[in-house]
């Protein structure tokens, strides 16, 4: 392939409180590709997503990550976000009293400013946000509520997809977006993700279960165990895993 990779992870080692969680990960993601990261609990899948987004509970010990050709670790979390790294959280946190609309606008303004685009005025932003809400089957009142405040599990996850749609990232990291969702909510979330797929935008989908991949069909599947990618393959690898269980890999 002649494309310049969007993301190049090389021999990444990271730890939390002195305990090694990622133990030499290498992964290349080209524009437009969807990679699924699967693995048993504690294999390091969520850590990978969080290290890429820049959460500072993790210490990068060695290895490198290049994003759009630049050293990702040189950038603060907010700079990564503005450059187009988006993390859909496994457990979206509440921010009481701050309306979802206010939060979304502050976020979109910050990213647009970085990209040299003008800030959207309030009415245009409202219109845009409402349209996306509709696609995700969220009522417009949803925008007036506090960020994730009293949201159901499904609403929280759809709120993450809503943010992704508004921020138009180039690399979206979905951290167990399927956890806690019933089948209907899962479908809506997956449709939201699929609507955003395009030849420039890449996804890393972290999941424990094959189920999500029926809806978000990946180009590649990697299996993580003990902080390493122990097996990579195509879509069929996920199905095989489901059949045989993670013990097959270990």
């Amino acid at each position, binding site marked *: 392939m002649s494309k310049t990779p969007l993301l190049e992870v090389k021999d990444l080692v990271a730890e939390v409180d002195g305990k090694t969680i990622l133990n030499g990960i290498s992964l290349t993601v080209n524009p437009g590709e969807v990679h699924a990261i699967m693995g048993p609990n504690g294999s390091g899948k969520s850590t990978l997503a969080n290290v890429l*987004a*820049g*959460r*500072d*509970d993790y210490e990068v010990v060695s290895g490198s990550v290049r994003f759009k050709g630049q050293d990702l670790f040189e950038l*603060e*979390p*907010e700079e*990564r*976000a*503005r450059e187009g790294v*988006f*993390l859909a*959280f496994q457990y*979206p*946190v*509440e*921010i*009481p*009293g*701050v309306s979802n609309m*206010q*939060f979304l606008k*502050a*976020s979109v303004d*910050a*990213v647009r400013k*970085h990209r040299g685009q003008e800030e959207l005025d309030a009415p245009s932003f409202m219109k845009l946000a409402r349209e996306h809400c509709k696609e995700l089957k969220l009522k417009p009142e949803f925008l007036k509520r*506090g*960020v994730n405040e009293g949201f159901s599990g499904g609403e929280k996850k759809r709120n993450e997809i809503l*943010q992704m749609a508004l*921020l138009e990232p180039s690399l979206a990291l979905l951290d167990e977006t399927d956890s806690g969702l019933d089948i209907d909510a899962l479908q809506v979330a997956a449709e939201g993700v699929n609507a955003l797929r395009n030849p420039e935008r890449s996804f890393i989908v972290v999941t424990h279960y094959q189920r999500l991949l029926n809806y978000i069909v990946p180009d590649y599947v990697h299996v993580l165990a003990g902080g390493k990618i122990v097996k990579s393959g195509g879509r069929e690898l996920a199905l095989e895993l489901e059949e045989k269980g993670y013990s097959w890999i270990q």
Partner: protein
Amino acid sequence: MSDEIESLIRREYEAGFVTNIESETLPPGLNEDVIRIISAKKNEPEWMLQWRLEAYRKWCDMEAPQWAHLQHPPVDFNAISYYSSPKSKDDAPKSLDEVDPEILETFEKLGIPLHERAKLAGVAVDAVFDSVSIGTTYKDELAKAGVIFCSISEAIKDYPDLIQKYLGSVVPQQDNFYAALNSAVFSDGSFVYIPKNTRCPMELSTYFRINELNTGQFERTLIVADEGSYVSYLEGCTAPMRDENQLHAAVVELVALGDAEIKYSTVQNWYPGDENGKGGIYNFVTKRGVCDGANSKISWTQVETGSAITWKYPSVILRGDNSIGEFYSVALTNGYQQADTGTKMIHLGKNTKSTIVSKGISAGRSQNAYRGLVRISPRAEGARNYTQCDSLLIGDQCGAHTFPYIENKNPDAILEHEATTSKVSDDQLFLCRQRGIDEEKAVSMIVNGFCKEVFKELPMEFAVEAGKLLEVSLEGAVG
């Protein structure tokens, strides 16, 4: 993370400049002669002097309260000057044209234009500089509605009947140590009277400024809303940055007669001291209102971000049947600031209602305490109170404390108390940053969200000011 939060909490105090004007300041120290001089300087009638002396004698037998969750060296009351006046003419200026241009400029810098042609969005302002009221705007326009809005010094001369009737009627001279001191030495402040069935045509506002070194400020505010009237009043406060602690001991009394409503809002931004806890204002204030008549209402809203030490409990005595008392408070402490603040709701009348919403935000190494009393008397049938008391901690070196007292003597009363303590969590900050929002903006957004229920009680233009003030006060809070 806590180091980062700490560096973000560094603040700059924008109102910290000193105005160079000639002033006349009494030498430090307090005795009966000082009180006689203050009274004479203001050409007060004999009854006023006697009232002050009576208060002073009571004060001499009192001791500073020790029960608050505050730590500071004892105040040396003989190291303070009790009167300072800008040196212009013999007494207070007769009109704004006579005010020293340097002082006018000071208020301009603080964003309080005093010239009426500079129109502060239809808000009438009384400006108090050190001990003296230097000018009240919109007087004529208010007079047309029958509203009296003037300095308390003028009121003592021009409206002696009202002053004699109401001064000390809500906060008696010997109410507490600092109220007694204030009663003895108060030098100026504002007086408001709203006649029967009158809605005050504009917001009223007093702006307090301490300038002179080693000066205490002891203002006295008295607002009387006659039957069926309404007034909304706002006070703002700033002081220069000085290494010494300065004392501010004010008394505010509100009287709402039958069916009257008083809405009193405060944005307090006295100098809080530097990042090592040096300097700053000691803000020891007594504020109390009485809902004297049936169906009256008093609402206190305060946004407290300044002062090295805050000791204040704006309270309401609900004497009239069906009267309503409200207290909405945001108290933010940072650096080495200490605050012990809250309210008292005293239910005497039938079907009286009170609401308390207190939001305390502690950052840096500060200590922030809520102290509240809800008292229901035996004859307050059908009384209701709702209290909500939330604390937010930023970083891990600060403290939040809650001291709620409930004394219920009527089995018919309904009381609710809710309290929460939360932290600005790393997860919340990370969520914001992952969405491209920088940390400072994120903290200010989270804190503003926390204070939302209180801000919506402020008059519009001041809600914006309060939001900005929080942002400035938190500048540097996570870096």
